[in-house]
């Protein structure tokens, strides 16, 4: 039944017309990871300002509808929010944000961007622009 909803319009719109998919201007933090089971890749790039806010947040990646739509929702939710809010955001809340019940296997797809965002908070990029990940996220992932 949950599966009937999996490819509903709302999810597909996030997948086909994603929010902030691309490179982050003035990126200060970035992280990329894969789901080893399927090879899905998500990269998150953030610009965290002096007040601990996510001034900019962008994602890129390659993977199934669920992982990419989940990343898109996550980026939309936290655009302009604080680092503290991201840290408090739990895996369960991520699944709730996605809004469609997922089987255990597909939960991993949904939680990949959440995991990457949590790690990105602790992954400052070098001050020199475009040193890390300069070869285009998504393409260079693997």
């Amino acid at each position, binding site marked *: 039944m949950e599966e009937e909803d999996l490819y509903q319009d709302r999810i597909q719109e996030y997948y*086909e017309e994603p929010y902030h998919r691309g490179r982050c201007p003035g990126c200060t933090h970035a992280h990329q990871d894969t789901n080893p089971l*399927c*090879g899905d890749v998500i990269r998150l790039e953030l610009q965290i300002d002096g007040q601990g806010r996510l001034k900019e947040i962008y994602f890129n990646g390659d993977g199934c509808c669920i992982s990419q739509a989940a990343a898109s929702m996550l980026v939309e939710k936290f655009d302009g929010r604080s680092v503290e809010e991201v840290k408090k955001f739990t895996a369960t809340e991520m699944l709730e944000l996605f809004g469609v019940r997922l089987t255990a296997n597909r939960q991993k797809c949904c939680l990949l961007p959440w995991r990457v965002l949590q790690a990105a908070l602790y992954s400052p990029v070098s001050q020199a622009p475009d040193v890390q990940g300069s070869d285009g996220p998504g393409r260079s992932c693997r």
Partner: protein
Amino acid sequence: MSATAATTILDPEAYRPDFPILSMLLHGDVPLVYLDNAATSQRPRQVIQAIVDTYERHYANVHRGIHWLADQSTDLYEDAREKVRAFINAPAREQVIFSNGTTGSINMVARSWGDANVRRGDEILLTEMEHHSNIVPWQQLAVRSGAVVRFLPITDDGQLEMGALDQFLTERTKLVAVTAISNVLGTVNPVAEIIRRAHQAGARVLVDGAQSVPHLPTDVLAMDCDFLAFSGHKMLGPSGVGVLYGKLDLLEAMPPFLGGGSMIRRVRLDGFEPGDLPAKLEAGTPPIVPAIGLGAAVDYLNAVGLPAIHEHACRLTEHAHRVLNAVGGVRLLGPDPSRKGGIVSFTLERIHAHDVAQLLDRHGIAVRAGHHCAMPLHKRYGVNATARASFYFYNTIAEIDKLGEALRQVKGLFHRHD
């Protein structure tokens, strides 16, 4: 591994009633279309019954007890070994070692033969189309020994670069490990020729037969391989049992891989003497019932006939190429269908393989999606995941048509905003 001359055309409907799972309805009322045979096949009643009979009437540990049941189970277990021996035309039953699967068999060779024979600077030649189970054990051996792992490249259409083989075979090549049929591309490799050329260069050859043994007649003598590894569960048998075939002198010289019961002649407090083959390489209680089930699977496959099985798979593959090409937006990996076994991997434009598989499941169609334990191969073709339909002799032309129709609907669902 030679295809024999024309056989009578196989009718899958004659065999489907033997496979209880194939008549299952999914999601209420959708008939199962099982196209994931390269991952694991289904089992006929005859195999299931052999397992039940063993547990109900013949089960005890093998090669140990002096009681009636122990004799029964030992006889059945050794009968299974004899059936497998004949199935691959091995000269002697000691050359058929029961392992826990293809992975177990390859690791046994890497750990035992590899550690005893491969030294710093030696080379192990693999190909870019190997399954992880025929890559990682050799990478681990390279770490232990200081040997180098090299990869024979593949062409854009998924065939081995045979023209480059002699360059890759050097005086340092100790072993060539190659799959007989790619689990992703479906390519049937010219293993006999690889073996001949490797032997001329002084290298040993291990053939990964996980995909080929269930589909093609296998003759280890004609092929002249040094080792052959394959699994029971892809050829109608239970999971948990596989086979390592080896040339007798190589197996005899191999130190026992695992130590324990069964594999010894004598144990003293200050050491042990290993037992004879095959026990030397079957430490501990072996996969008794899975091996007996595999024996029943071999009987079944012999009755159907391997040449007919292969021809049927080729017919389905050809049909699948036609049907999938007609869907539009489908990219097929691997060579022309005439060079393939029953495996067709593909991508659908702008739709991830996982989504394809999940949506096909709504139509009762089981395919595999992902990298199929062959990440280097997917990287070679610039895709991170593919969907794979793989066939066995119980699959029908009508099932392939259902796959095509379902893919059309998947496309419609995703591209409705276009």
